[in-house]
């Protein structure tokens, strides 16, 4: 069966929907678009769509991914056109390509994500930039996390920060761009990072200010877009 890998965005009102809501919304949009999606067998058939790592409620993103299994091939451009015509405002497809048989799933390959974090500051700009840089230079920043058994444990978030790409402070606005571990093996929640950042720098980050630019495949010191990773 052909599998089409699809990149989409989630923003505006659509960012307030949970991952489960997204799955339902996508399933219905695909039916409206009359895309020949494959259904699972059994008493409660559902369309065969697999997603990359879930995005938290309230966060926007330009680089989400899903793999959809089709009963028959259709033109990629036609697929994008029909699906976009059926998606609610705030969701939209930006690219789609068929992946070869046996290509690994999104959850296997995706291991990082690039975020843009915005915030405000009232102190002098020089200081803030320095404090942020100092924070990212720390070796250990511990946060509390509850494990699956409900036990509290301390976790060092610094090894999960892959790369700080940008720290910009201008007119009281702070913009930080950062790549962090994302996925089933190692996962840093962006809100855990912003929480720690606020505690260490006194920065006020906007409630609506976390944006996932894209999900990534990190390999051998470089980054690849998930759309073209077939092995």
């Amino acid at each position, binding site marked *: 069966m052909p599998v089409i890998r699809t990149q989409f965005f989630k923003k505006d009102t659509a960012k307030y929907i949970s991952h489960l809501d997204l799955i339902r919304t996508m399933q219905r949009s695909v*039916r*409206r678009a009359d895309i020949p999606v494959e259904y699972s067998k059994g*008493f409660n058939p559902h369309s065969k769509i697999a997603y990359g790592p879930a995005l938290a409620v309230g966060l926007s993103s330009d680089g989400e991914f899903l793999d959809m299994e089709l009963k028959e091939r259709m033109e990629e451009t036609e697929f994008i056109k029909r699906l976009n015509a059926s998606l609610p405002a705030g969701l939209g497809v930006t690219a789609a390509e068929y992946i070869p048989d046996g290509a690994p799933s999104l959850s296997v390959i995706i291991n990082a994500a690039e975020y843009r974090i915005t915030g405000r500051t009232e102190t002098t700009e020089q200081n803030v930039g320095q404090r942020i840089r100092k924070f990212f230079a720390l070796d250990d920043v511990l946060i509390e996390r509850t494990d699956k058994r409900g036990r509290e444990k301390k976790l060092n978030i610094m090894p999960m920060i892959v790369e700080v790409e940008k720290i910009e402070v201008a007119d009281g606005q702070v913009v930080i761009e950062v790549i962090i571990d994302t996925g089933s093996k190692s996962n840093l929640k962006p809100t855990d990072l912003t929480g720690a950042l606020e505690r260490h720098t006194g920065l006020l980050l906007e409630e609506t200010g976390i944006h996932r630019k894209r999900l990534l495949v990190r390999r051998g010191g470089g980054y690849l877009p998930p759309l073209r990773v077939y092995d």
Partner: protein
Amino acid sequence: MTAKDIEGLLNRVEKPARYAGGEYNSVYKNTEDLGIRFAFAFPDVYEIAMSHLGLRILYYLLNEREDTWCERVFAPWTDMEALMKQKGIPLFALESRDPVSGFDFLGFTLQYEMGYSNVVNMLSLAGIPVLSSEREDGQPFVIGGGPCAYNAEPLADIFDFFVLGEGEEVLTPILDTYRSWKEKGGTRQEFLERVALIEGVYVPSLYNVEYREDGTVKSVLPTDARFFKRINKVIVKDLDRAFFPEKIIVPFMDIVHDRIMLEIFRGCTRGCRFCQAGMVYRPVREKSPQVLAEQAERLIKNTGYEEVSLASLSTSDYTHLEPLVKTLISAHGNKGVGLSLPSLRIDSFSLDLIKEIQKVRKTGLTFAPEAGTQRLRDVINKGVTEEDLMDSVGAAFSAGYNNVKLYFMVGLPSETKEDIEGIADLVYKVVDKYYATDRENRGRGLKVTVSTSCFVPKPFTPFQWQPQDKIDIFRAKQETLRKRLKHRNISYNWHQPETSYLEAVFARGDRKLSKVLIRAWELGCRFDGWKEHFDFAKWQRAFEDCGVDPDFYAVRKRDYDEVLPWDHINVGVSREFLKRENERAKKGSTTPHCREGCINCGIMELFGGGVCDASY
């Protein structure tokens, strides 16, 4: 801060999709071209409100008008309410996020009495005076419809007017009247006096209520001879030609009934004596299977929903059920679209039909014997036998079903200890039936869920004169069942009797209850239908503070010669018929359902012949 920028708030509340709007098929219009802003209000939280079929129909009906934008407004959950108060954000419509205080109409659908405190709370959050007498020019008209509008006397001081019957028929003349009044620039009072002349509109402030010394109603009379002495409900006469939307809003978040509801008929041919819906939605009017198949086709195409549910008061009474089910399944089954049939009756339940549905999607099965003994089932005219139930569950178990829900009521008129024990006996017979089913056919692991609700006597039913059980009697009956239904395959749920008591007070209440309602809201009551928010002590205090005895409404038996607070409303079913049925109930004699012969309920006198599909 205005509602336009609620973004910051949405990240701080549970389920922000309740307030975000923007769902697929929601309607957005340019406000500059509009004559009428209408807020369709449901006094409960989003997931309940969005499940309501009436909202789905009327939202699109109103938005068909070029001069009108109908938006939605629901009760914010307590976390959102707290934030709105803190930031000074008034109640806003989901689509435009404009405050509803600037709208022309705020139209509440009144589905259950326990939503009344939310109505008051929503008005207050909107900054609209709670009492209709205190509203001024430029403020919206607060109007109400739905089943509770048939006896809306407890809300008489709060609403400007009520719509009795089916909104499809009456909303258009109301809005037309409004436009011509608004263009001429009249007073509020002038509009109310004009709208009161429309069939199906009840303006409570144009009627005076007098009471007797014992607190019962003496008379309800119009303040002027121009107004109707009795207000008739209005109905859609031909459902095939009635407005039905081709699309519905597809919510992002999970709602209670997250599926297409295909309305197969209105009204009910059964005359269950406790059931208000079965009386007030008469006459029976069916939609043809051709029209339904077309509507299903378009709704599936325009929504992408994976499930269609056939909506009515008693699905298996639909004349063309089998062909309709077969048509829908063959047309949509291969696209993963399932079909659900709620409200199936026990007696006409067919194994073929189950097998047909099961091809696509397996749903749980619900049966409602309502009472535990044949004697009591005859009293309430339920018209099903133990044999019917056993045949049906037997067929279901053989088809592999292992999850069955059984609904009963406690506190029905004339109920004895035997009837309560009878509920438990019947449940165990269902369990035995499962174990008697061939091992190879039955599903593994039986689960029987038993729910008992507390009987609430409702207006416009044969039991409208009957007293309700007292709270401690309900509790004793529930305790008996709790002890008897301890079994690994059975789980037993029961309703809080305090809630049902309050429901009984307001269901048959009069205008004296308006002040109690407002007092209870002042004391903090809201979301009374939600266990975690219902606070009976506050309600008791509200009754005390207002000097009103709730027992007068709930547990008092009425005589036939008493003027009932809703006697000036005509739902079509006559008082004589209800009295006759109450007398038959006392004798335990049943009344055949309408298709076996017209029982002269009175509906034909109101609407003339040819309207009721049950009579030929």
